[in-house]
């Protein structure tokens, strides 16, 4: 079974440009999450999808960030326009739906550098 995949693995852009990150969850996982780790700091929650619906977007830093999950499969996270402080590693995770507490399976992350 394929794990969570993310594209690209690295992205270097200039301040003011737009970047779109993509996440493909494990097949059949209805829950999809985005997290971010800024250099040397904690991994912070950004938002949570259940299928195509945003269940919790309390961690989104501002309206320059837009996440979508059309059709409830893959998700994209767009940053427009990018700022220097957006640099970091963006992780996507997915989990199954169920009554038990399922662990979240993480992708390898996208390292974003804003110059």
């Amino acid at each position, binding site marked *: 079974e394929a*794990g*969570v995949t993310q594209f690209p693995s690295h992205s270097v852009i200039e301040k003011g440009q737009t970047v779109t990150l993509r996440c493909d969850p494990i097949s059949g996982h209805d*829950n999809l*999450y985005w*997290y971010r780790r800024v250099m*040397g*700091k*904690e*991994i*912070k*929650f950004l938002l*949570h999808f259940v299928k195509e619906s945003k*269940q*919790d977007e*309390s*961690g989104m830093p501002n309206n320059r960030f837009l996440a979508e999950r059309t059709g409830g499969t893959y998700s994209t996270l767009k940053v427009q326009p990018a700022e220097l402080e957006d640099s970091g590693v963006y*992780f996507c*995770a997915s*989990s199954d739906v169920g009554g*038990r*507490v399922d*662990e*979240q*399976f*993480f*992708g*390898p*992350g996208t390292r974003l550098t804003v110059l």
Partner: protein
Amino acid sequence: AQSVAQPEDQVNVAEGNPLTVKCTYSVSGNPYLFWYVQYPNRGLQFLLKYITGDNLVKGSYGFEAEFNKSQTSFHLKKPSALVSDSALYFCAVRASYSGAGSYQLTFGKGTKLSVIP
């Protein structure tokens, strides 16, 4: 608000010796606790979790963790460290209530484990 503290940025241990990576947490209600490991250039990999039941949880690669409710701790342990255990370890907590916001994991800053041959 929930939080996780990993008091050590780095832990060094000799190969073959026991290792402990410390974690304390704060959360409303009963906690769901997790340990993840990140090897260089890789994503986060699930190691183990505590939901309920036995306070000693066994996980992947010979790791275990002990839940201590009175000390609000969930330290990661391994009886005999391997050089290949060298990696970045993250402790995380999730609230046990249901509903919006309950699924998000709150992570500690991570502890870099170095096992010396």
